[in-house]
């Protein structure tokens, strides 16, 4: 994909921080409000895709390497599985931090409450891991498709 006009690039520069902040808000408040790792990761990835469409896939690929994205995705997957294995003293996927005090260990009051961030045990950490995984996965899918579309435009080996 080639670069778009200066108006589009300026507006996407202006909008990118707000989209990133909104996406990370959805990821980090996944245990309190509607949302979670998948939804917030999709929001952040769509912000990155907006930059990709505005600047073209070649310039985007010079800033964000596909290698780095695959490392980020592996970190997300390994964090998710190791959080699941850490509760193995009781059961796989046991929530070993909930109700113990300390990190994310508080119990919210029964019924309707304003919501405290320091609750829910391993759920915020799992949200963060899955959010990293979804950001890296969707961004690398669109990045690879954009690079391949540039290849087809050049002619390539279209031998039919």
């Amino acid at each position, binding site marked *: 994909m080639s670069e778009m006009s200066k108006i589009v690039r300026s507006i996407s520069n202006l909008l990118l921080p707000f989209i990133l902040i909104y996406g990370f808000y959805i990821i980090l408040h996944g245990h309190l409000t509607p949302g979670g790792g998948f939804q917030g990761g999709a929001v952040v990835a769509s912000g990155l895709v907006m930059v990709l469409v505005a600047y073209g896939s070649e310039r985007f690929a010079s800033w964000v390497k596909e290698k780095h994205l695959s490392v980020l995705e592996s970190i997300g997957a390994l964090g998710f599985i190791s959080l699941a294995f850490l509760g193995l003293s009781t059961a796989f996927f046991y929530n070993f931090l909930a109700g113990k005090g300390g990190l*994310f*260990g508080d119990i919210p009051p029964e019924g309707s409450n304003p919501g405290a961030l320091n609750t*829910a045990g391993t759920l915020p950490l799992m949200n963060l891991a899955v959010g990293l995984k979804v950001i890296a996965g969707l961004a690398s899918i669109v990045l690879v498709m954009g690079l391949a579309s540039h290849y087809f435009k050049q002619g390539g080996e279209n031998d039919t």
Partner: protein
Amino acid sequence: MSKRDLVGVISLLILVGFLGLGAASMREFGVVDRAYMDDYIISHSQDEVGANNAVTSVVFDYRGFDTLGEATILFAAVVGVIVIFRREVHE
């Protein structure tokens, strides 16, 4: 209309007929039955998991295996797309 289109129309009509019969004879919309598991999760997600959001507590705690399989499928799809476009990107 060719023979192929005729076969398609007939099979589509049979499928839609059975689906419509099933939808018309289903239970009334908005009245659930056999919701014991969901009521347990709604009333216990705060003291067992500590999460205000019952949907997130189902996704990451009660049914963590589903989420593990889902993450595996997402990973496999990303790997598949990169493998399909490998020649175009790295040359």
